[in-house]
C-alpha cells in the first residue's frame, strides 16, 4: 500500500470513531470530543493529500490550520453552551435539551 492510502485509512478510522461517538454519546461534552476526532481525521486527510499528491501543498496545510482555528472557536462556544445548559437543566445530556425555550 502506498503511504498516501495508509494515511487516508488512518483518517477514515478517525472519522468512523467520531461518527460512532457522536451517535452513541449522550452528553454534550462527549459529543464535542467525538467531533474533535472527526475534525482531526479531516485535517489528517487534507495534509496527507497535500503532501503526497501533486495538489497544492500550501493549500492543504492552510486548510488544516483553518480547521484548527475553527475547532478552537467551536470549543469555546460549546463550553459556553454547555455551561448554560448545565445551569438550566442541571445536566448536559442532549436528551434533556429538547425544550425549545427555557
Amino acid at each position, binding site marked *: 500500500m502506498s503511504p498516501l492510502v495508509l494515511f487516508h485509512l488512518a483518517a477514515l478510522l478517525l472519522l468512523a470513531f467520531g461518527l460512532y461517538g457522536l451517535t452513541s454519546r449522550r452528553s454534550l461534552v*462527549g459529543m464535542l470530543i467525538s467531533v474533535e476526532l472527526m475534525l482531526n481525521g479531516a485535517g489528517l486527510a487534507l495534509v496527507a493529500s497535500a503532501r503526497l499528491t501533486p495538489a497544492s501543498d500550501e493549500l492543504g496545510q492552510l486548510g488544516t490550520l483553518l480547521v484548527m*482555528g475553527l475547532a478552537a472557536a467551536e470549543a469555546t462556544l460549546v463550553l459556553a453552551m454547555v455551561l*448554560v445548559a448545565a445551569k438550566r437543566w442541571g445536566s448536559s*445530556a442532549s436528551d434533556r435539551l429538547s425544550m425549545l425555550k427555557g
Partner: protein
Amino acid sequence: MEQLAYAAYGFYLVLILAGGWAAVRCRDLVRALLGLIMTLFGVAGMYFLMAAPFMALMQILIYVGAVSVLIFFAVMLTRAPGGDAGQEDEERRPARRAVLALLSGVLPAAILAAVVLTQSPQALALKPELPLARLGQMLTGPYVLAFELISVVLLAAMAGAVVLGFERRKGA
C-alpha cells in the same frame, strides 16, 4: 529508514486506535478526553512523519494546549449534583443505541475506504518541507479572506461565549 518510518506509522496508528477507542467508549469523560489527547498526539506524529512539523506543533499547541483544556473545563463545570462527576448517563437501552452508532460510524467510513483503496492516485515522493514564510505569504496573499474570516469567527465565538457566560452570572 523505510522500516523506521513504517514502525513510526504503526506506533502512531496504535495511539490513534487506542485513543479513539477510549474517547468514544469511556464512561468517564475525563478519561475520554485523555483518549482524545492520545489521538491528537498520534495525528501530530503523523504530521511529523509527513515532514510537516509546523502542522504537528500547531496541532499540539492548539488542540492539546487549548481545545482539550477547554473541554476539560467544560467537564469540570458540568458536574452533576449527585456527585457522579463527569460521568456519562446510563443508557436505558444501550445495545440498540450501540448497534445504531456502530452502523452510522462504520458504514460511511467503509464506503470511503473502498473508494480510497481502489481510486487512490499514485503517491509521490515526499515533497521538501514547506518553509514557514511561504505559508505566511499565502495567508496574507491569496487566502487573506479565509484568514480574515477565521479571525472573525474566533472573535464571534469569544463574544458569544462571554455573552452566554454573563447571562449565567445574572441568573445566579
